[in-house]
């Protein structure tokens, strides 16, 4: 029973990693850039919920508004910083995004101080008894919310003209231009969706770790492990990677006592290292092949 419980808890953690890993994969796929500041943006999104609530809004509307603001912020980041740098060399872009990471982290400390705050959970504090298993509603809720978001994304990409155009723009921008797709607008929307997904992960994780400027540090490392394991340019890979990392992290923390909660983060690093060593393209990543 302990095992089954650990797996389900792992899936809930994994769902959170998956949504942040998906955010990373999204921007990487469309623009070839890993957004190192993704986690800090997610942290600010969680703070935005807290701020809106202190101004008197209930939790659910505050959450939805924060996700909408995050979408706009992601789009603005693309338009203001990433697109102007699109011809710069990669190291420049990476430096700028790491700079942004530090700036956002300090901004949160400046605005809201470094002392922890409590963000209420979207789900009631109760347990469901499913046969012999006792699962918290939060665990089930997190998995359900992320599953719904994934379904919506799937429908967007597979069933709508906008989704098809976004995939075309990410795949071969020059050709997308030639069929009349406004490529920069598609990339803008892609970065917006990435930030919204990140916001979701931040808002889901904040009640579990308390709100503070460094709360995403652990999560972003797991998300990187998830994206690497799944293959950085694969959306399915990010999801599967996230769930796997969540489950493995929980099982290792439970069954290998000397690792425990303190060394759990090492699991993520080993996963990243192992993936890069054995299968650098990840489980679902495309191997870059050029036909001459």
């Amino acid at each position: 029973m302990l095992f089954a419980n650990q797996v389900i808890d792992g899936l809930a953690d994994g769902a959170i990693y998956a949504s942040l890993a998906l955010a990373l994969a999204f921007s990487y796929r469309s623009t070839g850039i890993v957004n190192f500041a993704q986690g800090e943006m997610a942290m600010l999104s969680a703070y935005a919920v807290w701020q809106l609530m202190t101004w008197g809004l209930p939790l659910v509307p505050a959450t939805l508004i924060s996700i909408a603001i995050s979408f706009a912020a992601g789009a603005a980041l693309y338009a203001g910083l990433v697109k102007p740098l699109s011809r710069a060399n990669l190291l420049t872009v990476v430096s700028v995004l790491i700079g942004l990471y530090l700036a956002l982290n300090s901004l949160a400390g400046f605005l809201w101080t470094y002392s922890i705050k409590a963000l209420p959970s979207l789900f009631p504090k109760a347990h469901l008894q499913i046969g012999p298993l006792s699962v918290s509603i939060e665990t089930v809720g997190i998995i359900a919310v992320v599953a719904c978001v994934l379904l919506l994304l799937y429908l967007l990409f597979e069933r709508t003209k906008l989704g098809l155009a976004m995939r075309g723009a990410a795949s071969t921008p020059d050709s997308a231009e030639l069929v009349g797709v406004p490529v920069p607008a598609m990339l803008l929307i892609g970065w917006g969706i990435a930030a919204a997904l990140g916001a979701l992960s931040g808002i889901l994780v904040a009640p579990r770790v308390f709100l503070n400027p460094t709360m995403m540090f652990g999560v972003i490392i797991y998300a990187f492990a998830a994206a690497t394991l799944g293959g950085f340019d694969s959306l399915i890979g990010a999801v599967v990677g996230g769930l796997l990392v969540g489950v493995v992290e929980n099982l290792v923390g439970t069954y290998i006592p000397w690792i425990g909660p303190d060394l759990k983060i090492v699991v993520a690093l080993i996963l990243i290292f192992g993936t890069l060593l054995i299968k650098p393209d990840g489980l679902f990543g495309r191997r870059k092949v050029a036909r001459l």
Partner: protein
Amino acid sequence: MSLLSINGLQAGYGPRRVLQGVDLTIGDGQILVVLGANGAGKTTLLRAISGTIPRAGTITFDGKRIDQLSARKVVAAGIAHVPQGRGTFADLTVDENIRLGAYLRNAADAKRNRERWLTFFPRLRERLAQQAGSLSGGEQQMLAITRALMLQPRLLLLDEPSLGLAPIITRGLVDVLAAIRKETAMTMLIVEQNANLALAIADDGMVLESGNVVLRDTAANLVGNDEVRRIYLGYE
């Protein structure tokens, strides 16, 4: 009445100017083939028309100036460009490639055109669910042409459609282009190494040399022109 008329067109890459001031006209429904050695500016000419590189000079299409328009606006004006190397969306399926070609058209037009052009390329119909990147070179070229036709263009720009294809595949492709022309009277500007084949379906041909038009004549006259025969058609 000419569909496309170009005056003093200059274009290039950075400081390197490739087109030195090209003038040309294409009548509505005409097929014009551009001949020329490597580096003469054939591809650059097509790119300058479709607005994928900066250009100077005047380009009038269907009575409207298009030389200031972005690539996307040129597409919207009705010019479809099949680039060199085909430029298919390798990780999308064949069907998705075709549907994306109709991005600027409504759903009803897209559906009707898809059926129409698939009858010209039955091979693609068999491969609709396959990833475009897994197609053979000839199939990719068919896909690139179909995708361009989905726009319902008035003018089709084709850049080296036979590049890297076996002669028999090229022959089939040219036959399909001739059939499409017969049915739709579509205007085409074709850059092609295989001058023999291309001139067979063209009305006119022109020769580019170092970014200048040095010769323009009917296809029949060009086939009989000694110099053209020697340099571009491979006759001794």
